């Protein structure tokens, strides 16, 4: 009998382990493999502290966005607007008017603009019943346009008076720039929110079976809206990080970040159909992407090859997870 055959199987691999461990193991192995490639091909450059710091700094901006994206995708949606919303937030926060209020207001501005744009996405998806792909595609185009309009398509410098923001990238604690700590904090808070709170539990339910969630009394629409708001909030934080790193706000920031973020989430083992996934997986996926970029740069290879490699990695990662899912359950 079917029901008799499974218990031993399950006993050997506890529930959490089956969903969490196996894909992460593969991701960690891939990272280790990439590190070995780095050590072999560029022994003098790869393992230096400056190189590792630059990998983490590079990963921080998209990393923060990836955390928000993970929530949206586990909740059964998708957010294509993240890069554009980040650009808009950076532009809005660096207008002369905003800058005149000082760095704290600039940060607040970036965060509010991002959250606001995310909530608009959420409203369109949940109460306007638009397909997430379409609603956030519209936001992508419109936010990019608004950013261009506000900035007159010029790059806006962070003024000397507000250099406190830039210090996020220049000040180092224990050898790491502050923005890496911001990234780490977002990851930790995201993990807690997803794994230890009712909000996280509802996110899995809404993405896994929206009808069951609704009939269990969960306000699916409100929750969906909050998920997009959360993604927008992450874009706002990412905007602060990119202002710190580049000392500018620009409508060209974050171009195609949505694709990198989605790819990182998918490589990390989150189902695009929702209901399953982890923050740690997404971050590992992102690190794999960032390390590859770093390896290509260190070895002086061109960016086209880098794109081809990334494309292959997405395919291989998803195929391996599919096989894992088929044999695992």
């Amino acid at each position, binding site marked *: 009998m079917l029901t008799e055959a499974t218990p031993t199987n399950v006993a050997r691999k506890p529930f959490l382990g089956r969903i969490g461990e196996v894909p992460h193991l593969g991701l960690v192995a891939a990272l280790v493999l990439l590190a070995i490639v780095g050590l072999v091909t560029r022994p003098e450059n790869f393992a230096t502290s400056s190189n590792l710091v630059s990998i983490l700094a590079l990963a921080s901006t998209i990393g923060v966005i990836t955390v928000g994206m993970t929530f949206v995708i586990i909740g059964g949606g998708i957010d294509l607007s993240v890069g554009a919303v980040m650009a808009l937030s950076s532009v809005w926060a660096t207008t002369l008017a905003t800058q005149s209020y000082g760095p704290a207001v600039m940060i607040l501005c970036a965060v509010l603009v991002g959250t606001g744009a995310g909530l608009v996405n959420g409203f369109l998806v949940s109460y306007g019943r638009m397909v997430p792909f379409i609603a956030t595609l519209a936001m992508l185009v419109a936010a990019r346009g608004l950013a261009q309009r506000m900035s007159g398509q010029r790059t806006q410098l962070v003024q000397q008076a507000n250099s406190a923001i830039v210090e996020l990238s220049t000040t180092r604690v224990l050898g790491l720039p502050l923005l890496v700590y911001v990234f780490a904090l977002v990851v930790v808070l995201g993990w807690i929110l997803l794994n230890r709170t*009712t909000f996280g539990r509802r996110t899995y339910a809404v993405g896994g079976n929206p009808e069951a969630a609704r009939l269990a009394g969960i306000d699916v629409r409100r929750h969906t809206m909050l998920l997009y708001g959360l993604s927008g909030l992450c874009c706002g934080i990412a905007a602060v990080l990119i202002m710190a790193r580049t000392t500018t706000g620009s409508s060209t920031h974050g171009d195609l970040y949505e694709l990198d973020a989605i790819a990182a989430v998918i490589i990390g083992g989150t189902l695009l159909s929702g209901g399953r996934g982890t923050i740690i997986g997404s971050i590992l996926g992102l690190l794999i992407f960032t390390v590859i970029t770093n390896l290509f740069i260190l070895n002086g290879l061109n960016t086209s090859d880098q794109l081809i490699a990334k494309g292959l990695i997405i395919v291989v990662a998803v195929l391996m997870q599919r096989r894992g899912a088929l044999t695992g359950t």
Partner: protein
Amino acid sequence: MPASPPDTAPLLAMRGIVKRFPGVRALDGVDLEVRAGEVHCLLGQNGAGKSTLIKILSGAHQPDEGEVLLDGEPVRLATPTAAMRQGIATIYQELDLVDGLSVAENILLGHERATYGFTRRGESNRVAADLLRRLGHGEIPPTVEVGRLPPAAKQIVSMARALSHDARLIVMDEPSAALAHDEVANLFRIIREITAQGVAVVYISHRLEEIREIGDRVTVLKDGRTVAVGLPATTPTGRVVSLMTGRDVEYVFPPRPAPSGDRPEVLRVEGLTVPGVFADVSFSVRAGEIVGLAGLVGSGRSEILEAVYGARRASGRVLLDGRAVPPGSTTRAVRLGMGLAPEERKAQALLLDQSVTRNITLAGLTRFARAGWMDRRGEAAEAARLVETLDIRPPDPRRPVKTLSGGNQQKAVLARWLVERRRLLLLDEPTRGVDVGARAELYAVIRRLADEGVAVLLVSSEVPEVLGLADRVLVVREGRIVHEAPAVDLDEHRVLDLVMVSTNEESRVD
């Protein structure tokens, strides 16, 4: 009435068909014999195995045992395409047409008239028009988009598609369910014409009087077994009904407590209406009382439950403990103390990949949370307690709920509503897909809840279940409550009569 076809060798013979699903024996030795040119009616209550049998016939399921013979030759219907190639076409209740394609494109879907992949549109339209004319519906233009057609015309298109495969046997699953009365007459005319051309029809319907009108012979299924093969359609209704209901399996129902009228009213429903689905439904449920809604699929019983729960917008009033329940919000309904175990357990209730614990606590997360922070130890303890109380097997709350049998999954759904005390439980088909032993346990759990003061509103397609479990029964037919009585005053025959009597027969009685 078509003339009785001559007594030839059967076109189709199915012998000793057995089909098992995890935890259930859906078919347990079914025989069916259909002759060329006859209308063969398949009868049985919900869950008797009709749909499983059709799915085997259409190649969607494979039988575990038994054989299928066409013209006396054994055949294997491995896929729907293979069945179609053998001349067996199935028209499902929810028509499988593509709304965005034209009538002709739908009719020839999968075997388009084409040259090197380019469709020959003129020829396709001509072929389609010919088929429609053969069905007496030359007025349906082959070029129009199917989505624009009324249900009756869609039915014709489905039938034309079946004929386009040179079908020798057409299976029709409740073809009259979506049709108005005069459209049914037209459907019957078409069925007579195609059977006159030698095509056999397997006809499934709940409406017994239709079967007398259109059928030649009748096969009756009950609990996955054939109880009568090839009876003449003229067999008296009473005999057919008793064949359908007489059971081998006796359900064990918990004893009812003595009725007491002084318990407070928990649910009061007044004039509840969803246009086109049900109208002017009023009733009440007292604390500790189990009220059963009996009716056919499509009579509106599940929809009434959903409307009470706020999952479906309706006009009229729903009062819980005297307080108005706002329409359209399941969140409010749950907060006010309702709980629903929906009809489709997997699609509507469970997070299949997730653990039993997480499924149990889904509706009561706030009980384990302080400022949103989950007390996971408390959650696990409560889930473990409920797994033990309801005897969910295997008793491991960390297992993914999808690995449980149907009965244990249903217990997990019930457990969800035991986390926080409910005033009213709405149970829609609580024992669907649950085997006999587990049923008795579910009945006991439901009765125990009622004894603890919960008001229960129960929907079931199985009349004995409603009669055995409920204190009071409301009979629903075509969106209205047509009868109300204590369960002890009703029997299965009486309820089936009330449930199935057709509108025209009723007017004749009046």
